[in-house]
């Protein structure tokens, strides 16, 4: 399949495994034959703070950062985090929003109301998918850390990517019991 360029924006909080998600997905796309570029944020900024990463793939190599208004997909591993990257959504509202319903509240900071959130989300996209990623992750792995793998399983249906290739990429990252649990979480999300 030829893809000129496909841009994914991934947002969430430090410690949620965004970089792992980028690496697994990116490696699979490279194996599939695409040119891929991702940008990661390391260091102090990752600790509990907001993280914003990009993954872009296609037949030519692109810049590590996209233009605003041009993303094909926006993934939020934490619900409110998507607000920070709404300007990457296409004005024609075709950008897919994949949102984990997990909410991380901070003491002394007001969390956006659901009304406000839904309002601005539907202003920006006609393709919004809410995923109970925390619940699925917890069910299979007894930990919310696997939310990134759940999201990965869910988005696969939108991507030109062979399932066995992405499973191979996951296998490079886990072993033993953890691998089995993560694959179960991945498969449940894939079949949602």
């Amino acid at each position, binding site marked *: 399949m030829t893809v000129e360029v496909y841009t994914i924006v991934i947002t969430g909080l430090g410690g949620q495994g965004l970089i792992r998600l980028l690496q697994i997905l990116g490696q699979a796309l490279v194996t599939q034959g695409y040119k891929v570029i991702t940008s990661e944020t390391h260091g102090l900024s990752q600790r509990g703070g907001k993280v914003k990463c990009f993954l872009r793939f296609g037949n030519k190599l692109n810049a590590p950062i996209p233009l605003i208004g041009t993303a094909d997909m926006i993934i939020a591993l934490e619900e409110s985090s998507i607000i920070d990257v*709404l300007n990457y959504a296409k004005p024609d509202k075709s950008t897919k929003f994949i949102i984990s319903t997990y909410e991380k509240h901070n003491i002394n900071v007001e969390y956006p109301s659901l009304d406000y959130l839904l309002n601005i989300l539907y202003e920006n996209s006609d393709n919004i998918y809410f995923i109970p990623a925390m619940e699925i992750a917890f069910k299979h792995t007894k930990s919310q850390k696997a939310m990134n793998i759940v999201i990965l399983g869910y988005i696969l249906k939108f991507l030109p990517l062979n399932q066995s290739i992405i499973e191979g990429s996951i296998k490079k990252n886990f072993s033993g019991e953890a691998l089995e649990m993560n694959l179960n979480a991945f498969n449940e999300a894939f079949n949602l």
Partner: protein
Amino acid sequence: MSYDKIIEGKPGDIKFFLGNEAIVRGAIESGIDIYTYYPGTPSSEVGESFMDIYKEVRMKWVESSINEKVAIEVAGAAYARGATAMVGMKNVGLNVASDPLFALATTRPKNKNSALVILVADDPQQHSSAVEMDSRNYLKLFKIPALEPSNPQECLEFTKEAFKISRKLKLPVILRTVTMVSHARSNVIIGELKQSKIEEDFDLSKEVNVALRIYFLDMKENHIYNRMKHALEISENSTLNRVENEDAINEFKLGIITSGVSYSYVLEALDFLELNTPLLKIGMINPLPVKKITNFLKRCDQIFVVEENDAFLETQVLAIAQMNRLKVRIHGKDPFSYSKENSLLPFVGELNPTLVSLALIKITNLKPKVDLNQIIKRKYNIMERKPILCAGCPHRTTGYALQKAVKKIKLNSERNVYFYQDIGCYTLLAFPPFSFANVKYCMGSSIALAQGVAQTSESLNIAIIGDGTFFHSGIPALLNGIYNKTPILVLILDNGWIGMTGQQPHPGSDTRYYKEGNLKKAIDLEEFLRGTGVNVTVIKHNENKDEEYTSQLRNLIYEKGCDVLENKSLHVILIKDECIQKTVKRQPIIIRYVDPELCNNCGICYSQFLCPAIDERDNSAFIDSNSCLGCGICEEICPNNAINKEED
């Protein structure tokens, strides 16, 4: 952690490498002998990767040095003696290394194999830095060649090219990256690994290696008029500097000059605007190819120079246009005006394709398919989240005890208390609820900053510094304070590692359980401090179980703080509490639970101690068992004994 192993694979294989990993691959494809570094985001993964593989590829040596000055001196002398050497640091590290580098740049090794590449990773936008600094300005001072890759593939190729140029010219070569290149991950086609050609016999003649008046002026003549002249020839003839879209025609007669990651943003913006322009891509950013630039300027009516931060290229392009009396209009930052309005691109912060597109729209008046300004105008209520210390971080415990102690000192002495911060995770204590920060500059400065105010006021001045930073450059400032009998309180937060950049070792680190193993001799910081004759008190977490640790620490800070004020003495408190990210990898995590029956929701654990693993839920504190790393401090500070090791 590398996902794709750096040393595996055959020439032509495609890897999925970070820019930093591609640099390592490029170096081992150049027969590197030695790599020295001081960790600093975004350069750290280079050193860590070398540490993983150096024995396997039979390099002579890899070290995480005490600071960048020492790192460049170790690598510099290895270069002088005929090694293929590399040294790595972040942009501000070059400030620390600049003193030896000035002499080193002019020396001229006599050994055939000598080559030295200096990796300098800038961090525009300060993703992980205390300041934003464009290291390219140093190139005019040092007068050495520099290459700037724009993506991971170029990281590999330019590293190899840098070694070749250095070996040929006998000049150190800077490899300059930025965060979006070092931390971009992409397809990288690898080449062949190469064995080192280092020889045991070598020449260390003083005429070419000793910075001393009778030798230096000769070396400097040769440096500028011979070696840099050769560098200029390379710059003019190399494909590192090349014109792309040579035949592109546009109605504006516009051409673009750019380098590094900005090059990829330019391509993106041109695509977006469906604009065709010739483009001069500068890969060798010092010395600039004057003839190539002149020829490029001659064919255009307008030029747009696209670069991040300072107008390093633009000021030189302006000079080249003037030298040739060219009427071409040069767009960019209008660097001599200090005017935000006149500047098409910012001096401050990272570039991106949107900013480059907006600037091109101003130059051309083109109407893009997506109205960018319309998108920018829309504002949303964004939730503020400051970066926070990890759950279980020892610095939070110190902050909590310090807060209590200082409150008491202020109450009893009626004096003001000021805090001097340094570079490390503990910098986050600058934010509420702690707010321990009055002055902070750079690595190792806290102890001297405290002295400046202590010598000129009656206040209590407290320096907060980590162990890694203390070793890096805090020691001279402490000795200065001891010698001058300056009344300050110094808190050394000894967590055993360079925590912020990924828990790398420093000379005080106990590396027994890690990849460095028994190869290092850890310096005993306590003995070191006692040797200086300073008043030092050591407190270790979990040593005295009879008394609660936070109260011990609070009382100690209170007592020594009062003594600094009353007796005008200098006190050091060495707080030994290991980084939780290290201990959880060696010890089982004992998670704590809240008993909702006993909890009266006073909020001390989640709103005063501010542990990110604790939240309020159903009118009670609640510990998230996935986030808790088992430090146990919440159990200690809970006034109702509602936090325990067992779940009910």
